[in-house]
């Protein structure tokens, strides 16, 4: 079995899935794809370039708010609104990157910087009147509407949008990884001094990683806004969301292409499965999902620190670049 066949098989199953599954499994799969997508985006920074961001909720939130506000105020369709959304998020990312990399804020300290920016943006939006402040921002919903350009339609539309986004991000990440820039990122991740001595412009390559990652992440935010139709600064910019974004790639395998996708499948299904099971027995256990996520992370870190995918790939005898 080759990586390509495995992927194409999975893609075929996912394309066909809505025809056979009900509304709830479809909603779960949308979540799986959404977090797989965000995981791929985050992995470009951490997995490829070795830059730990713990504030990726910032880009989700900026993307969501910019596209939603432009739609609500000017009727700008989501597909067009995604462009300014990505620009705003990328500029924010580049600003944080420039600060961090110019002043040699590395490793954990860089991560703290990303948290700080996400947090104070949350507080900013909490107090910003025209986007509803802390009481949230809502998109008008009309039932029976179908307009793919504006991302208005039934869940199945969002399912296919999420699928296209995830597949697109995967292909982009794959081609980046095999490019000149990809080699520069991996070199920097392994040893910045050696990378520089090998002719890699460390600052520029890092900035490129931030730009790609923040732009992709913001598009996930646009999706979030139009799928849920509501956003609260408290939730969308929260530290908890930033953590949720990074779990799938860590569990699936940092720096691998398929890791974030596999991680998202495992985590989301575990989380939803547990919640469903508890509900079935009539136990309301808020936070059960977080406990499951925590346990999953613990097990992975102890048993397979490199992640599920490298382990599975070896079992299936798939090339390491799959």
């Amino acid at each position: 079995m080759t990586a390509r066949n495995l992927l194409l098989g999975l893609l075929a199953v996912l394309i066909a899935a809505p025809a056979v599954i009900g509304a709830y499994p479809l909603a779960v799969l949308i979540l799986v794809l959404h977090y797989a997508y965000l995981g791929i985006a985050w992995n470009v920074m951490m997995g490829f370039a070795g830059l730990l961001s713990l504030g990726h909720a910032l880009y989700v939130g900026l993307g969501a708010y910019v596209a939603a506000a432009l739609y609500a105020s000017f009727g700008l369709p989501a597909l067009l609104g995604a462009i300014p959304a990505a620009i705003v998020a990328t500029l924010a990312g580049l600003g944080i990157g420039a600060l961090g990399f110019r002043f040699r804020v590395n490793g954990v300290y860089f991560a703290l910087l990303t948290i700080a920016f996400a947090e104070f943006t949350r507080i900013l939006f909490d107090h910003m009147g025209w986007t509803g402040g802390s009481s949230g921002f809502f998109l008008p919903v009309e039932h029976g509407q179908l307009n793919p350009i504006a991302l208005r339609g039934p869940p199945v539309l969002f399912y296919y949008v999420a699928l296209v986004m995830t597949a697109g991000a995967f292909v982009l990440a794959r081609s980046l990884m095999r490019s000149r820039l990809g080699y520069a990122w991996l070199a920097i991740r392994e040893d910045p001094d050696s990378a520089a001595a090998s002719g890699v412009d460390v600052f520029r390559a890092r900035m490129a990683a931030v730009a790609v990652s923040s732009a992709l992440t913001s598009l996930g935010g646009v999706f979030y806004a139009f799928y849920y139709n509501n956003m609260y600064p408290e939730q969308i910019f929260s530290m908890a969301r930033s953590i949720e974004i990074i779990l799938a790639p860590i569990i699936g395998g940092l720096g691998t292409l398929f890791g974030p996708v596999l991680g998202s499948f495992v985590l989301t299904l575990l989380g939803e499965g547990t919640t469903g099971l508890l509900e079935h027995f009539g136990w309301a256990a808020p936070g059960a999902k977080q406990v499951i996520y925590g346990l999953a992370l613990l097990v992975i870190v102890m048993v397979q620190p490199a992640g599920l995918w490298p382990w599975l790939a070896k079992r299936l005898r798939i090339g390491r670049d799959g």
Partner: protein
Amino acid sequence: MAEALLTATGLSKSFRGLKAVNGVSFSVGQGEILAMIGPNGAGKTTCFNLIAGAMRPDAGEVRLAGQSVTGLRADQICRAGIGRTFQLVKPFAGLSVLDNVTVGALNAARHVAEAKERARAVLDLLDLGRKIDEPASSLTLPDRKRLEVARALATGPKLLLLDEVMAGLRPTECDRLVEILAGLNRRDGLTILLIEHVMRAVMKLAQRILVLHHGEQIAEGSPEAVVRDPAVLDSYLGEEAL
């Protein structure tokens, strides 16, 4: 001596008042092999770091083929044509041997496929051809030293800076590396500046030797003359040779 490829003039660097390198001036001719020797702490590696852009000199100038490269960043220096190895080897541990060298080769190649091709050729030259798919972290120290040389060589340098690449090698391995480097120098006219304690390699490779002690140059000349220099025997060689 041929026309100078590298000229260092009055290079100085202090760390908290300690003058690690103090007004060092020398030049390396086109196609020459110059060895820099001296006791530990003499300022040899600092000298390298000043030339390779890992540190900025407090004073002095570095010129490569007549162009000033003083104070440029390490990656700019690399692209200008100076390849370097690190004394404490710094492989990209998580990457394969081939990918390690491909990173360097991308400097001299138009695209990734060409860089891989180039990396393969360099690895073959350094007897690492059969280990290209292994992760760099699994290599033995002698192989890591060779990998370090391969990565620097793959960048397509005019001048190669080698920082104690013979250390930790067995005499036969050392002789083999000397042979490879001498071959590169002879065939391709590669200019080499090396820091080395292994006198066996220095005497075979170097056309000239520069001796540093306490950050200052105390002798310079042909290998035969330098190893008889009383100042050198007193401060460095004597400690081991006599």
